[in-house]
């Protein structure tokens, strides 16, 4: 039995279709990240799971039970919000215990649960304070505590780290990962931050324009993007996309004379003369010359940006652009003509008409 099952969920606001048929099934203990840019429908989907919005059509099942028309409080879920959403005039202790208080859990039992949760989140010393006296990170811990204490079947997180500064976000991310590995509960987590998605998720659903572009493990999403959108969205710097055409077993890169051999695994998938988009990750590129086994492209280096651990190098290949993340010791200089080399395995081919991977 799935912990959470979403079947053909659609949502219309007037004539605007924000969700266009979403299907997801989650096993117990999975950490699903809904990843996408703003307006893709990820928060709407989360609200539908929570019961804060109604699906126009489709079904949502939590623990095998359909929750259509079920009040949020009876769905056996807990939610953590981006703005923390703490009750400003209640102490931390009452904030965490609020859900239990509303469910008329006896005070002694409630108090014990609140203390255990606070200990888990290392906020025992804050229990008597009001939210106004806490820092952003502490507030977020309280918000997480309020969800944890109820021990629900599914946790819902709505961009919980977006309001934190960069350093704290990193800390809380690790903390969330630790908590999930310890508690093994089912989580649905909404974010537009691909690093959060990659690090936290057991599976990622990349959403775009009301649809799921790809649902897979972080490894699948990163290494085998199903569409051009996923390829471009996940990864920073983004995957390079070169327009090319298939010519007699070679890929002719548009705007140059450069040719690279069509990898064997694509030989049957693409026909001769077809237009393709060649995708290659910046970290798959190295500064040439490489060995004979490598493929290479002649480039002229345009911009070199040292970020610390690497140099982000932008180069021109004919009229198109390529970005490579090179090690800092690589001797790349502006204006230099050289070659970027890579393994045949690193190439991904997409159909420019449908945007789908070959």
């Amino acid at each position, binding site marked *: 039995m799935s912990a959470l099952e979403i079947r053909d969920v659609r949502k219309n606001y007037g004539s605007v279709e924000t969700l266009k048929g979403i299907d997801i099934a989650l096993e117990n203990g999975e950490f699903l990240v809904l990843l996408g840019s703003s307006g893709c429908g990820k928060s709407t989907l989360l609200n539908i799971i*929570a019961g804060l919005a109604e699906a126009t059509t489709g079904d949502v099942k939590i623990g095998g039970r359909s929750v259509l028309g079920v009040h*949020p409080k009876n769905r056996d879920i807990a*939610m953590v*919000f981006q703005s923390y*959403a703490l009750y400003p005039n*209640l102490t931390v202790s009452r904030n965490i215990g609020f859900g239990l208080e*509303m469910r008329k859990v006896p005070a002694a039992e409630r108090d014990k649960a609140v203390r255990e949760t606070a200990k888990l989140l290392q906020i025992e010393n804050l229990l008597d304070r009001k939210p106004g006296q806490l820092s952003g990170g502490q507030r977020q811990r309280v918000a997480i505590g309020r969800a944890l204490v109820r021990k629900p079947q599914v946790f819902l997180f709505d961009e919980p780290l977006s309001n934190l500064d960069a350093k704290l976000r990193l800390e809380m991310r690790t903390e969330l990962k630790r908590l999930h590995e310890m508690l093994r509960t089912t989580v649905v987590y909404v974010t537009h931050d691909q690093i959060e998605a990659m690090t936290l998720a057991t599976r990622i659903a990349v959403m775009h324009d009301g649809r799921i572009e790809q649902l897979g493990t972080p490894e699948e999403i990163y290494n085998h993007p199903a569409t051009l959108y996923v390829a471009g969205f996940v990864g920073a710097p983004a995957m390079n996309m070169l327009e090319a055409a298939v010519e007699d077993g070679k890929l002719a890169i548009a705007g140059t004379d450069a040719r690279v051999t069509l990898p064997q695994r694509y030989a049957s998938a693409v026909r001769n003369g077809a237009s393709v988009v060649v995708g290659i990750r910046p970290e798959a590129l190295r500064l040439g010359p490489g060995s004979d086994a490598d493929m290479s492209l002649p480039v002229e280096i345009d911009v070199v940006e040292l970020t610390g651990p690497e140099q982000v190098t932008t180069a021109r290949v004919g009229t198109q652009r390529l970005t490579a993340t090179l090690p800092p010791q690589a001797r790349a200089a502006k204006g230099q003509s050289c070659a970027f080399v890579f393994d045949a395995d690193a190439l991904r081919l997409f159909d420019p008409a449908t945007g789908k991977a070959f």
Partner: protein
Amino acid sequence: MSGTWMTTRAWLLMLPLLVVMVAVIGWPLADTVRLSFTDAQLVGTAGNYVGFDNYTKMLTSSNFTRTLVTTTWFAVISVAAEMVIGVLAALLLNQEFRGRAVLRGLMILPWALPTVVNATLWRLIYNPEYGALNAALTQLHLIDDYRSWLGEPGTALAALIVADCWKNFPLVALIALAALQAVPRDITAAALVDGAGPFNRFRFVILPYLAGPLMVALVLRTIEAFKVFDIIWVMTRGGPANSTRSLSILVYQEAFSFQRAGSGASLALIVTLLVTVLAVAYAALVRKTAGSAT
């Protein structure tokens, strides 16, 4: 530029305003204080110094005590009712429904009407011969005969309070409605997921955001209600049998109807002092509420 020149310049720039303020506020106030220690009449004698006689006479008169009680009743009951009705109206108008914008606009109407119009309107409603209230109540068989709502000491104050509420609840509703817009959607959603019902959502989620603005409305309304003059003057002139006489009306009667400028002035200053005490106490309360609501 030296500090003293900056200070001098600041004072110079403020001087015109200070002159005007002294002329229109300071001087009349000072003259009222002077008058209050004399037995001056409105017309004729300039009056002789009588010390605190006017004050002791006014404070110990049964008229003053009775009027203070009437005014307090009026202020407490009408303000309390306005707060409750105002908040309820705001909660209703914060729901999503068709025609909400129109209703929000309509609601402001009673408050936007001049008090005299409002008071005249309610006088018509309460009219003992052809008033709408009598007609409605007899048709509903709640009363047998038409009554003179404003003519009976037992009902006149209540009738006035209803009219005042009708006029002033929109102000409270407007302030509360504005405050409701500031309640974060996330917190309401969190309370829903936490299982809080409508009452607990109001108490724990909405009220903390309403408290500060409502306190301001409470201060404004209480002070105004304590000073009430116009609505009563138009509807009952303080009658019948002085049952609706407010402090402001008493001041008016003393100073202008009986032409006793001296004792009228002392009474006016006593009322001013009472209202100031209220204002200061409330200001402290507002600061406290604002401080705890973050």
